[in-house]
């Protein structure tokens, strides 16, 4: 249709789509899902890190971690704000997630087993997230692009803080260093898988690329992450748990061994170490908060009624 053509031409000309603009239903639907899943990921992502707030080993680190988890809640807020501009209801989307009808990033289905996991998540998981997200700062949908600009700034801060924890651990006692290596062993492959299935198996990419929702392929982004991270690990004196890892001088890239995609699909399917618990924790918070939300609404209604009464 003419509308569709005009829409695509605007995108091709790098003109941002704004909430009141016409857009194809499929674009709206795809974006709604993508942004909502991203928002849900921020919310669920608070849990694995929140698990160590109470046990952070210094007050400074506790401060930094608290602030970080708070930032994640803030990111979720921006993103739910962005998705609402597409006409979706934030609560409805959230309840879809609670009921298991919408996904969140699979990485948060892994447990945080030691303090070093907090460093590793900052270093690897936020590192991977940034690589995924920086292109989105230029994506075609204005509110999403603007949210991503703010988010990326904070994420890169988090990434540096995570790396800083790793530096402390790796310069620390043998027990601390071992803790760091153990965390890397557990998080490396899940982080590598954060970029999604290999390009051959990834669906919808062509359309998303044309719409400028997805600007690089999964494998391109993954390679970028690997090339960035391997030297950091060496700098820390840590060993990446991949016997096949090798530098390919010809291309200038680090090449990793085979990824166990069966694990990836298993975790997505719900069979990760923490899927059940993460959803249960979010559901518990939501259900136990119901009376609080109701009370706030009831009080607001009373107050409104009284102020009308006073005005009359």
């Amino acid at each position, binding site marked *: 249709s003419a509308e569709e053509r005009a829409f695509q031409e605007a995108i091709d000309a790098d003109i941002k789509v704004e909430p009141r603009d016409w857009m194809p239903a499929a674009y709206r639907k795809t974006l709604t899902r993508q942004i909502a899943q991203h928002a849900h990921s921020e919310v669920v992502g608070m849990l694995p890190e929140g698990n160590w707030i109470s046990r952070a080993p210094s007050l400074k680190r506790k401060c930094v971690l608290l*602030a970080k988890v708070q930032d994640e809640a803030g990111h979720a807020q921006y993103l739910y704000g962005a998705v609402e501009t597409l006409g979706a209801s934030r609560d409805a989307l959230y309840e879809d997630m609670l009921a298991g009808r919408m996904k969140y990033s699979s990485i948060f289905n892994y447990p945080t087993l030691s303090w070093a996991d907090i460093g590793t998540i900052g270093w690897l998981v936020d590192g991977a997230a940034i690589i995924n997200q920086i292109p989105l700062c230029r994506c075609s949908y204005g509110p999403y692009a603007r949210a991503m600009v703010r988010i990326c700034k904070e994420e890169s801060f988090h990434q540096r803080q995570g790396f800083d924890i790793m530096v402390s651990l790796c310069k620390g006692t043998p027990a601390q260093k071992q803790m760091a290596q153990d965390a890397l062993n557990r998080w490396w492959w899940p982080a590598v898988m954060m970029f999604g299935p290999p390009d051959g198996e990834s669906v919808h990419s062509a359309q998303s690329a044309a719409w400028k929702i997805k600007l690089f392929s999964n494998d391109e982004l993954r390679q970028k992450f690997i090339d960035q991270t391997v030297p950091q690990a060496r700098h820390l004196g840590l060993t990446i748990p991949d016997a096949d890892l090798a530098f390919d001088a010809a291309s200038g890239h680090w090449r990793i061994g085979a990824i166990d995609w069966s694990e990836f699909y298993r975790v997505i399917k719900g069979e990760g170490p923490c899927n059940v618990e993460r959803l249960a924790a979010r559901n518990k918070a939501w259900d*136990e908060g*119901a009376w609080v939300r*109701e009370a706030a609404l009831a009080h607001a209604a009373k107050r409104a009624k009284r102020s009308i009464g006073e005005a009359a």
Partner: protein
Amino acid sequence: MSAVAASTVDASLFALCLRLGDSALILSQRLGAWCGHGPALEEDIALTNTALDLLGQARLWLSLAGEVEGAGRDEDALAYWRDDREFRNLLITEQPNGDYAQTMVRQFLFDAWHRLVLERLGEHHDSRVAAIAAKAHKEVLYHLRRSADWVVRLGDGTEESHARTQATLDLLWPHAGEMFLIDEIDGEGLRADWDAQVDAVLADATLCRPASTWAQQGSGQGRHTEHLSRLLAEMQVVARAHPGAHW
């Protein structure tokens, strides 16, 4: 000033710093446990905010305590390597989170006190105390606005929220009294101001002020409730598993 007098001043200053610093630290620790478990995203953010402010204050007070003590203990040495008997936080700060009403009533009773104390300490003769108090006071005004607001919303919300809030108020009330047994500050004046403020909010919230005048106490001597040792076991576990480590 004679050495004896100086050490008396120091001991009393040290005690004051621990009182304020430990209270902020322990309440912050409690609030941090809500992170990711609040009734709404906005509440997660707001609670974390308060937790962060309090943690920041705790670090200032404990650093000053260490300086006053002069024994080479920094904020982390004081936070992670003292046992419950050496902590001087108010009993109310170590009470469990319970439901949201319990967290908010605890916060309100504490904030109302905290604000008044910090106001007074803003004029403390020791400029370091005055500076920390002034900074903290600004933050606490905001905490108080928020916690008072929630007490009103929950008290004057639904039947269920009213009942929960009244129950928690009755439960926590005996822990309020010891807040006024503080050295260096006129407890009676403090109490009167606190009463006026609390009464006004409770009236708005349609809550009854508990009749009991009995005050649970002991934290000034490090005699806490059964909750503190458990809280510390968790808070200190990683640090203590690695003596001498840097993080």
